[in-house]
Each structure stands twice: as structure tokens, then as C-alpha cells.
């Protein structure tokens, strides 16, 4: 489907301040945006191919290498898929530690995205480093938040990128009470800093041009707690499905301009006759669907700033992340306080037999949205089949739509200078907080 080039395309060769390599290509002909492509030229890494035939332990050590920004999300989800396949039930303590580790990933990832990648746009800088002169307190708060997120992951996962301490069945070494106590104190001291992101964002309203109702997907909390876990995925269209059936409902296909595939949602059931539709996922979707489960502080903040959390506008995703930052600092503090009292440093990982084999499918909420893993393990403890879908692959089609909408409205407003249009489009892309490495390296076809 080659486009006839009537005028020069609006091109962004390499979108800066996102994870991974992607470009934007927008074709405008007769003042109409005729095509929008997120060119994903990050190279493929074939994780689902190279892990096939490998021992499940080696495979789960490799999966987090899909992406550094959400390595913990990948590691935890892969490990839990392996556990689901092998019928391993980790201890409650393991689950709580994993949750705290996952929250650490959220805090680090959101703080990085907001303070380092998104705010320079809003405040008119090229980057956070040059912003540091004028907004020293803001940058410092961002660093402190990112650091505590990293520290949580280092304490529990051994380090904050590619957390090796996390194993099938438990941990290599359980952190000590003193370490948990230190985390607790550090988290308590950052409560007010966690509100800073939303303080900044309230000064910037969403771009109305982007308003458009959209379908949101997120995991429904089982126990009324707003976290990354739950047994069902629900949609803003009031449909839902069990997470382990994700392959029936989230469909992928290859597109020519991208090493990342695109996804559609098929609600199945009685609505089967409907075409599978594009959807979005991420902080805004979680907020939209699960907001009543936020902690009080986060809830108050979100009620006060409803306008910034419009589910129809992708820029709201930044604010949703800011609200989550408050929420997760609270949640992390609670968890760390609890663990500082109760943690049993001598607990060993649950023993298991990798040769039992089986299939496990798990979905969790990564910082950027839904993340699904399916691992099929054979009778020798090796991976027979692996399937991973990442949030970026899920929301890419929606992102392209929004980029098109933005471009169209700018063109309609008489702006034709690509150097003015391009940065605006980049801001739209960045609001999704896309993770390009993730999206490229894992999609697979049946």
C-alpha cells in the first residue's frame, strides 16, 4: 500500500526521549492527512524464537532483556507464566515482594517518563539536564523518585535493570528487615515529592484537537486494590475476559512499516459480529477503569483535577501517570512497612519440577499497559512455544490515529511548516510513553 507522494511528508526521523528507535511519517495530500506511520525500525530480536528449545530457567533470565525500562515487568510476568505452566504456587511473601518490586518499576518508569522525557516538552527544554538549571527542585525530585524506584528494585531484584534475583518459585536471597526499613523511611520522605508531577501538569491542559472517545483495556483488580495484578481484563466497552484467554481476544498482525506488530481487541461472545477494534492501554486506561481503588491521596488529587484525566484524550496519560506515582508511593510505603516487620529472610524458593511441563498464560499491567506472556513448557523443562504481547504493540494503532488527528488539525489551522508540526506530533507520541524495544522484540504470529 504505497502512497502516492503529492507533497513532502512530515518526517520525524528519530523520535527523541522515548525508549527505542521509531520515526513518524505523515503524508498530507490536498490538505488531508492521507497516512500516518509510526516507523519502527528498531531491529528485531526474536525473543520468542530464540527461547524455544531452551530451558525455562534460562528463558526467564533472558526475557527481561526485551526492555530495560520495564525489565521487572517482563521478568515478573515471564516468571509467573512459567509458574502457571508448571503449577508452582509461590509463597505469600514472594508475591508481596514481587508486587513491591513491580511497584518499584512503576515508580522508576513513571518518574523517568514524566520528569526526564515528558516535562522538557512542556517546559520548553531539549532535555531534563538543561532544565535542571531553572527547575532544579523539580529535576531533583524526579531523580529522587526515580532513585527510590530503582532502589526498591535493587534491594529486591539485585539491580534495577534485569533483576536477576527473581526466580521461578521465589528469590535467590530475601532482603533483610533493615533494608526494608530503610526503603520504608525513604518512601515516607518522598510522599510530597510524589505530588510534584501533578502540580506541574495542572498548568498544561490537554490539546482539544486530540479529543476522541476510545476503547480502554486494563486488568480489573480482584481484591479491590489498584495494582498490576488481577485475573480478568476488562474493557471500557463493558466487556471482559479471563487474562489467561488473552490470545483469543487480543489479536496481532504484521504491518509493513514496523518491526512491531499491531493489535486489535476482539471481545468475542455475542459481540462477535463486530470487527475487532483498536484500543489503548496504560496508565490512563487503568485510571479510567479502576479509579475507585486508588489510595485516598491519589484519589483526592484525581478528583480535584478531573479535566486533566479525560479518558478521550491521550495527553491525559501523563496526568494518570502522575496520579499513579502518588498512589504507588503510598502503596510501596505500606508494603515496605509491612515487610520491614514480617519478612522472613530465610525463606527458600518453592521447589518445583520443570519437567512437569504445561502451558501458562499470564497478563499483568506493566507501567505502559497490558503485558501478556504465554509459555508452553515441554516434558524436559524446555520452552516449546512462547508468546509475548507488549503494551506498545497494543496501543500503536491508536497512537497512529492520534498522530493523524493532531496533524490534520494543525494542517486545518493553516500550519504547514513541518518543523512546527513535527515536535507537536512527538509530544503526542511521548504521551503514550511508548517502549519501542519491547514492541519490536516480542510480537509473534500463530
Amino acid at each position, binding site marked *: 500500500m504505497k502512497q502516492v507522494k503529492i507533497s513532502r511528508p512530515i518526517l520525524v526521523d528519530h523520535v527523541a526521549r522515548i525508549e527505542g528507535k521509531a520515526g513518524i511519517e505523515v503524508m498530507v495530500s490536498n490538505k488531508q492527512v492521507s497516512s500516518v506511520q509510526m516507523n519502527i525500525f528498531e531491529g528485531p*530480536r526474536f525473543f520468542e524464537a*530464540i527461547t524455544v528449545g531452551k530451558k525455562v530457567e534460562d528463558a526467564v533470565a*533472558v526475557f527481561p532483556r526485551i526492555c*530495560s525500562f520495564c525489565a521487572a515487568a517482563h521478568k515478573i510476568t515471564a516468571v509467573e507464566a512459567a509458574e502457571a505452566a508448571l503449577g508452582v504456587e509461590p509463597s505469600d511473601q514472594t508475591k508481596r515482594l514481587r508486587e513491591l518490586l513491580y511497584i518499584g518499576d512503576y515508580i522508576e518508569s513513571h518518574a523517568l517518563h514524566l520528569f526526564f522525557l515528558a516535562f522538557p516538552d512542556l517546559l520548553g527544554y531539549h*532535555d531534563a539536564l538543561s532544565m535542571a538549571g531553572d527547575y532544579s527542585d523539580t529535576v531533583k525530585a524526579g531523580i529522587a523518585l526515580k532513585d527510590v524506584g530503582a532502589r526498591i528494585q535493587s534491594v529486591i531484584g539485585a*539491580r534495577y535493570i534485569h533483576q536477576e534475583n527473581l526466580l521461578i518459585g521465589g528469590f535467590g536471597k530475601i532482603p533483610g528487615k533493615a533494608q526494608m526499613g530503610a526503603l520504608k523511611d525513604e518512601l515516607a520522605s518522598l510522599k510530597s515529592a510524589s505530588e510534584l508531577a501533578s502540580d506541574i501538569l495542572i498548568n498544561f491542559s490537554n490539546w482539544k484537537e486530540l479529543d476522541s472517545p476510545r476503547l480502554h483495556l486494563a486488568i480489573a483488580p480482584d481484591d479491590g486494590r489498584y495494582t498490576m495484578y488481577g485475573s480478568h481484563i476488562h474493557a471500557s466497552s463493558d466487556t471482559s475476559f479471563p487474562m489467561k484467554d488473552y490470545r483469543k481476544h487480543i489479536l496481532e498482525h504484521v504491518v509493513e512499516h514496523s518491526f512491531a506488530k499491531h493489535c486489535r481487541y476482539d471481545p468475542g461472545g455475542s459481540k462477535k459480529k463486530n470487527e475487532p477494534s483498536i484500543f489503548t492501554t496504560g496508565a490512563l486506561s487503568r485510571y479510567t477503569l479502576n479509579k475507585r481503588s486508588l489510595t485516598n491521596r491519589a484519589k483526592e488529587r484525581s478528583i480535584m483535577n478531573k479535566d486533566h484525566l479525560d479518558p478521550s484524550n491521550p495527553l491525559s496519560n501523563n496526568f494518570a501517570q502522575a496520579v499513579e506515582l502518588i498512589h504507588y508511593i503510598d502503596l510501596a510505603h505500606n508494603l515496605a512497612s509491612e515487610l520491614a516487620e514480617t519478612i522472613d529472610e530465610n525463606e527458600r524458593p518453592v521447589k518445583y519440577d520443570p519437567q512437569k511441563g504445561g502451558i501458562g498464560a499470564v497478563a499483568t499491567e506493566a507501567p505502559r499497559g497490558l503485558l501478556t506472556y504465554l509459555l508452553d513448557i515441554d516434558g524436559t523443562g524446555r520452552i516449546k512455544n512462547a508468546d509475548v504481547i507488549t503494551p506498545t504493540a497494543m496501543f500503536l494503532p491508536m497512537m497512529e490515529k492520534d498522530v493523524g488527528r493532531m496533524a490534520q488539525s494543525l494542517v486545518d489551522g493553516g500550519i504547514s511548516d513541518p518543523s512546527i508540526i513535527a515536535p507537536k506530533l512527538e509530544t503526542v507520541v511521548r504521551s503514550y510513553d511508548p517502549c519501542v524495544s519491547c514492541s519490536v522484540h516480542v510480537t509473534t504470529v500463530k
Partner: protein
Amino acid sequence: MVETCSVCETRKPVVGVYALTSCYGCQLMIATVEKILQISEAVTFKSFHMLTSASSHGKVDIAFVEGSVSTEKDLIELKQIREDATVLVAIGACSIHGGVQSWDQGLRDYPEMYEKVYGNGEIAYEGLAAKPIDHYVKVDHYLPGCPPDEREIVYFLSTFLFGTYPERKERPVCHECRLAGNPCILIEKGEMCLGSVTTSGCNALCIGFGIPCIGCRGPTPYDTASFDALAKEFKRLGKTREEVLDRLSIFGSHDRRMRQMVEKAYGGEK
């Protein structure tokens, strides 16, 4: 204030941080080192797409290149970087050793993997089997790790700022593991720990957590990795040739001696 730099002598060194195909962890590590603000004062970042939109092409004094060459576009970019850079530092497992995406190097070819993942779907960009960057261009310094250690990143930059260059680590992880006071888990638990053939610099972090080394910093340089002796020990512990090769290939599949030396250990008595 910095007075000299080994590369550019008189002014602030101009640094580029580039990514080929990777997880972006090395860049994330650079961007999140504790001293990033100090670094950003000591050097000028000419290109660092992940961190700044003020990134541009052109000459740099020091280029840090993360990622393996996995597409034609990667290769073109890499050659340009080499041309533009006075000193080129390969950073991270992908760049130095091909990374985890090279796990199947020598086992499965590119079309087979492509088909497995993308079916018969067509993509406009040309992919390549993942390779370390020194298969294509000259590399001046190697900064290993998956991801690299914060201290080493700071060390590398500091040596340039001091008018010299970094010393290459060539001791195995076991060295730092003993220095850290860990017991040896290969001996005690019989686990397939790759510490003895893996370049140090991580302070044996994983073993400190009771986790065997999977070799993320890559084989020790100068052909000092005794894959054969290690494989023999694994064999004695009841590990199969495949298990050993799979483990050693995660980060070492491009080592020209590895496969042959493991075969030697298992030779004849399959």
C-alpha cells in the same frame, strides 16, 4: 573544571550515546547514574536520543554505542558513527558480544527466526542476524555488562577526562566473587555458574544473591576463558552438552572458541 581530555585535549569532550538494536538498558544506565548532572556538565552530549531532543549527527570525540547490528539501518548508522567519532566505545553485551539476541547464533539462521516471529508478513526494513559491532568497525574500548555497572560508566568517562583511557577488565567474575566474600556456588550447590569464564566488573552481584552467573558480561578477553575445563566440570555434575551450550551461548555465542571447547569436553562420549 575539566582542562584536558585524552580525545580532544583542550575543550569539553563532545559525547554521543547511540543505540543500535538493544533493550536500551545501557543508555538508561548512563542516563540514571547518580552523577548524571555532573557528567552533563563535564561533557557535551551531542547525541543522546533517549535523553534529549537536542540530538544531532556529526563529529563527536567519544561515541558510546549500545546494541548489536541487527538491521541494514543499524549497519549504516554504525559506520557513520565510526566515521564521526574519534574514540568509539562499545557498551553492553549486545554491542560487545551480540547480546541475548545472538543466543541462537550458529543454530538457527535469520530467515528461520524471521518466519517464526513474523510469519510471511513483509516489513520494509531489512533485518540482519545480530552481530557484535566489532564485526563491522574498529572498536577502541569495551565497556561490558548487561547492563554495565554504574561505577564503570563513571570510570570510563573519568579516564577520558583525565587524559587517558580505561584499563580493560580481564579477570573473571570469580575474582570479585572471592573478594566480595561469597562462597563458591559452583562448588557448594553444583549450579552452572559461569563466573570463571565471564569478565568481572559486576562485583559478583548475582552470586552475592545466591544466583549463578549467566555470563552477562561476556567471556573474558584475550582467549583466557577455559570453557573446556568448565564444561568438563559441568559434565561431571551431570549437565548435558545442550544445557551447557545453551547457558554459555546466552551471552557468549559469538566467542569463536566456546562451542569448540565445549565439544572437546563432551567429545566422544555423547
